[in-house]
């Protein structure tokens, strides 16, 4: 066919060719796919795990205390058994059951909080950018003010005053602190888009404000919105885990952060009970790495300049 068949391609050329194919669909980005895969893995762990493993093992005293994972031995010389493949914590809870129940809880808080936060952010950002004037001033100042307040501290005050909260309540509280960045981002984008030809065209043709906002402008913001969403999921989970590690999250629902809190308090680090804090830590790390990969992938989707480098 072409000369390419005769000459063996260098690696750079092959990569070039691959990239040209990938060019058709920027969403088929390896980082994006890997990141989404990691997160889906955690969701699957929660969904399928519940079917295959006995969720009642999360209760205190349901197994022997401080058993190591299979293939390891604890300080008392006990070996891991098949009944508790990932070991048990100081209260006799099975760690596999704990992460099956706990990991989706942690992810749920992050997703719910940022869904709400994003909705507020989209609404306020569009209002500020599109309507301008007094409304813009108010929203902008409010976002500027709220962005400097670290959510963790306000929530620490809140939860020490109110004690136990549910997961949904915690997500709602965190949502109050993740709307600022999307608001600022969307406002800036809307302001620049307002000047663009297609928006002015729509205005001239008499389209309604909501039509312009949601049918003309919003689709162009999708990569930014996704990026912003993932960033706020990360912030939400960091905040939630931070609260839990301080012992302030939901008290009776297993979460990854709370498991770490209990492990630190029981001195698991000195007693070499590494599986107790290590497994939740690992799972959280996987979650954050997944989110980071998605974010990097989205960056490449929305900013083709970066694609050249990888």
């Amino acid at each position, binding site marked *: 066919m072409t000369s390419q068949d005769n000459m063996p391609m260098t690696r750079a050329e092959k990569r070039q060719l691959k990239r040209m194919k990938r060019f058709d669909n920027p969403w088929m980005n390896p980082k994006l796919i890997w990141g989404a895969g990691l997160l889906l893995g955690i969701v699957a762990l929660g969904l399928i795990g519940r079917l295959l493993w006995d969720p009642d093992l999360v209760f205190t005293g349901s197994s022997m205390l401080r058993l190591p994972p299979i293939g390891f031995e604890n300080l008392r010389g006990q070996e891991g058994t098949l009944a508790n493949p990932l070991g048990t914590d100081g209260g006799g809870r099975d760690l596999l059951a704990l992460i099956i129940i706990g990991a989706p809880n942690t992810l749920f808080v992050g997703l719910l909080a940022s869904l709400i936060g994003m909705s507020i952010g989209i609404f306020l950002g569009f209002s500020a950018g599109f309507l301008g004037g007094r409304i813009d001033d108010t929203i902008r100042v409010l976002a500027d003010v709220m962005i*400097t*307040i670290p959510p963790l501290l306000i929530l620490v*005050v809140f939860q020490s*005053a109110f004690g136990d909260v549910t997961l949904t309540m915690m997500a709602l509280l965190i949502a109050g602190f993740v709307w600022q960045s999307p608001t600022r981002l969307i406002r800036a984008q809307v302001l620049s888009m307002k000047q663009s030809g297609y928006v002015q065209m729509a205005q001239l043709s008499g389209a309604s404000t909501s039509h312009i906002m949601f049918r003309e402008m919003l689709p162009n913001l999708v990569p930014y919105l996704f990026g912003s969403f993932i960033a706020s999921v990360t912030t939400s989970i960091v905040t939630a885990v931070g609260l839990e590690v301080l012992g302030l999250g939901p008290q009776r629902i297993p979460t990854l952060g709370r498991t770490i809190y209990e492990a630190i308090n029981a001195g698991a*680090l000195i007693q070499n009970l590494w599986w107790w804090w*290590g497994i939740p830590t690992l799972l959280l*790390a996987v979650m954050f790495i997944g989110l980071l990969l998605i974010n990097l992938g989205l960056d490449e989707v929305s900013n083709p300049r970066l694609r050249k480098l990888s």
Partner: protein
Amino acid sequence: MGRIPRDYLINRIVTLFLTILIAATIIWIIPRLSPVDPAEIALGRMAAGAGAVANSEEILAQLRANMGIDQPLIVQYLKYLGGALVFDFGLSTAAFPTPVSTLILNALPWTLGLMILSLIITFFIGNLLGALMVWDRSPKLVRVAIPAAMVFTSIPPILSGLLLMWIFAAKLQWFPLTGAYSIFVEPGWNWAFVQSVLHHGFLPALSIVIVTFGFWALGMRGLMITVQGEDYVKLAEAKGLRPRYILYRYMIRNAILPQITAFALKVGLLIAGQVLVERIFAYNGMGKLLYDAILNQDFPVIQGVSYVIILMTAISVFLVDLLYPFIDPRIRHEAA
């Protein structure tokens, strides 16, 4: 104020004060929405200590008067704001007659020291590595190793702290497990104490550094890509300047500026993250103070610590905003 337009300055000052006011108000309102009565908690603590308390009604009334919660809400609020202005948050309920401000003053140097140290290290390392990722003369190894190291950056510092603590303190025992200095040395300006502080501070600082440098590196990478294509870089190359000279004097110097604003936005999260690191390392800073206060339901301390940290964040954002035009003469502030 030289090049800073007055409107911009006023705008920033208003934002600063609004931030502090709103944060202080939220911190004040929340405990008052709670059904828990602090006087009853104090009474409960007495009862737990003494077995039984006679005249509990009178004591409750007295406690309420002492805490000032028998006054109208608006009076309480104004008093609180007045107190917050001079960092007076009353007395700690757990360490009873100690004023909250004393506790905070004792903890603050530790937190600030750890924070400034780790910030400087991350800012330096992160930006350098980010620049090397883009520079076309950096060794192959650097280009592969840095993106791999980025994986750490997605992890909050508590997790890296736990990991480092386990490896270097619990397993290898190279570093002490907890605390800010050894209990065997006398605090003071002597070498043994300084050595002990550095020894204890290494792991907490490292756990912050390895998770934050990537943020700077990523930002720097994006900026360097833009700078790389600029005409002045091409010109410098054409002039035959040494590549290293071009990297430092032409590319990094121009790319680094927006990083400083990013810094302002990140300060809040950094401080909050550090609070948690201090908690797990039982480092003598604000984080430990906060954690102990949470355990003891010590509201004045919780409020005081939160307020001081928010104040620190707001002021650093404000300062960065103001200093920025001096650092980057290309920036002209629009009158906002």
